[in-house]
């Protein structure tokens, strides 16, 4: 067919790439993703959250299948049903753990009020375990050119590493953070493979520290002030992504990223703007609910008791709860659009793949793993992409 015409002239021709070098492209329509997450949030509301497994799967399918390396789009082969089953299994395992946690906490409380707080540390470690296993699930569902990624290693061995590194990072007020990230990333990548190509991570903590120390200093100098923090944080994230991408090796394939330091600043501010707007609306809504409750108990001169009483009126509780959930879902949607899709797109477009020919004849390897890790991550509220 020769009637294909470009209404705005010829499409821009990308600069020619050196041999063996390829780009990553993301072709997903923003509109499609927005519709997907908004519909998903509405269904989450109707299904009291159960739709999250389907939403997560749909989002991943959209992101994966629109991301192409050297023109070949990836594929996400996970299903929502797997996630649901993983969650139910995690539930069965977590129920007795929660019960034990409750009983131990009770004993601790008897000795000293709020003494059960350190028990939270156990859940921090458990969350790290879950994060590792969830990554493993997602990787084994990631397919490119008909061959899947896979992962070995132990979630617990990762969890205690993460725990010790976080402790060090807290003690050093964040100075140790780059080394923590590098070490944990090395562990993850050295247990990651694409077919028979083994991955590794060559980024170093020192390398990252050299790039972010001034931001760290700036953060402390400005004393975590409201306005500079998003700028500093966004720049830090961009530098980290660049460092992370250029540290990845899969076999002899390497990556570079030309992500700008300021690439995420706009995204973070948009999220903040939306959150402020949504919180304002929520505030007005709760104000109306409270006014209704106040009138329903007879109004009159305000006293502390009347406020307490008005707040406990059934319509106030229902309206407040409903508004809170809708606002939380809306914030989630905003975050998914800007900090998931847009961020993903920006990172993807910034990446150049080098020496891709080293991945030309990869033999399939690796087994699928269950979604139990994702289930844990889900019930501990640490699920990622």
């Amino acid at each position: 067919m020769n009637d294909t015409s470009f209404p705005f002239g010829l499409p821009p021709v990308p600069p020619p790439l050196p041999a063996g070098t390829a780009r990553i492209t993301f072709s997903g329509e923003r509109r499609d993703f927005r519709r997907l997450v908004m519909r998903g949030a509405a269904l989450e509301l109707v299904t009291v959250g159960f739709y999250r497994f389907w939403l997560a799967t749909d989002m991943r399918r959209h992101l994966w299948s629109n991301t192409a390396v050297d023109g070949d789009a990836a594929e996400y082969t996970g299903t929502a049903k797997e996630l649901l089953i993983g969650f139910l299994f995690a539930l069965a395992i977590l129920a007795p753990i929660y019960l034990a946690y409750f009983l131990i906490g009770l004993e601790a409380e008897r000795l000293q009020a709020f003494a059960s707080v350190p028990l939270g540390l156990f859940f921090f470690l458990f969350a790290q375990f879950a994060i590792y296993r969830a990554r493993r699930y997602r990787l084994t569902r990631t397919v490119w050119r008909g061959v899947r990624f896979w992962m070995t290693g132990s979630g617990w061995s990762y969890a205690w590493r993460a725990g010790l590194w976080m402790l060090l990072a807290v003690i050093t007020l964040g100075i140790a953070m780059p080394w923590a990230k590098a070490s944990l990333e090395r562990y993850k990548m050295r247990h990651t493979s694409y077919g028979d190509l083994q991955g590794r991570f060559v980024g170093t903590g020192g390398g990252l520290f050299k790039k972010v120390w001034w931001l760290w200093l700036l953060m402390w100098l400005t004393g975590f002030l409201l306005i500079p923090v998003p700028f500093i944080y966004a720049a830090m994230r961009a530098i980290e992504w660049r460092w992370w991408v250029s540290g990845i090796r899969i076999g002899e394939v390497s990556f570079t990223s030309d992500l700008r330091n300021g690439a995420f600043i706009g995204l973070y501010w948009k999220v903040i703007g939306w959150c402020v707007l949504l919180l304002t609306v929520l505030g007005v809504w709760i104000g109306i609910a409270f006014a209704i409750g106040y009138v329903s108990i007879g109004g009159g001169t305000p006293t502390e008791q009347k406020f307490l009483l008005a707040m406990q009126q059934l319509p106030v509780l229902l309206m407040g709860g409903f508004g809170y959930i809708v606002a939380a879902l809306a914030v989630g949607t905003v975050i998914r659009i800007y900090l998931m899709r847009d961020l993903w797109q920006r990172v993807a477009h910034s990446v150049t793949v080098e020496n891709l020919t080293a991945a030309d004849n990869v033999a399939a390897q690796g087994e699928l793993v269950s979604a139990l890790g994702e289930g844990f991550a889900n019930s501990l509220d640490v699920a990622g992409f």
Partner: protein
Amino acid sequence: MTAGTDHSGIFLDGRSNRKRSVTLRFASGLDIADQDTVIESWPFDQVRRADGPPAMLRLSCTSALPLARLEVSDPATQGVLAAYCRSLDAGRSPGQTWRIVAWSLAAVCSILLLTLFGIPLAADRLAPVLPLSIEQRLGGAVDKQVKFLFGGKTCTRADGQAAFTKLVEKLKDAGGITMPLEAQVLSSSVPNAFALPGGKVYLLAGLLRKAESPDEIAGVLAHELGHVQHRDSLRRLIQTGGTSFLIGLLFGDVTGGSAVVFAGRSLFDASYSRDQERAADTFAIDVMHKLGRSPKPLGALLVRVTGNEASKSIALLASHPMSEDRLALMSKDLGVNTGPEILTAAEWRALKGICAAR
């Protein structure tokens, strides 16, 4: 493009990531041929759509290797494939979303029923059989937090304490309390009184300030003793614990769900306590009668604390619902005192000043 019969695509065999340009032939099945050699043949009814970018048709086959893929970008070929392979989208019914919604609603219903009926039933059955030592352990944990929340200062001015002890002992004897009991006055301006698991009863100084006669305080304490004797706070603890455990588990990550769970729980609690409140009221009226005193002042105090809108309110604090029938129950009494004053005027003054500095 040559004749319409030449259909081509990219084939990945699922063993390696080598891309092969293949031609497609439609015979008894979908034949995938690499330069005239058929390398794989997929039965039409086993060909499925795999996830791919919008413009590309990516296919898999249920009987082939799980990751074997055929990628077709040419729209004409895609049309032909769709015409031959009738089960491309088998297993992805459009009604799936509605099924998810329906099942979720069913889950919500079952949880609601469990919270409304199952857990209260379990609490009712469990509370009487749990050993006292366990109840006291539970109470110990709650006690620490309550003291923390209310500043933790107990009022122990000697003469006031003596009057308070006398009052509690009288009520205890009249009510025939068989449970261990430990009553104290806490220095807090909140007008309230409550019983904790394990027989701890706290009277907050705010209520003492609002009270106008010993009979009012006696009524409130008798009411709390009723809760102790019926082991109500243990029941409530089992119930709130059970409910939050159940809901918290299921809604693991629902954005901010725990706040709503908390609100919902306090609602359930309020409605749950109503029966117990009535039982405690009956107990208090009974005790007051045994002491030869009218229970009317208790109602008067509650009205004074909740204000004149008592009939419209659900609760002052969720644990003490005030309702018309409760008031009616107390005012039914004739209000005739046949027995002696519970506390002398001097003792009453001392009790009112129990929180004053020495």
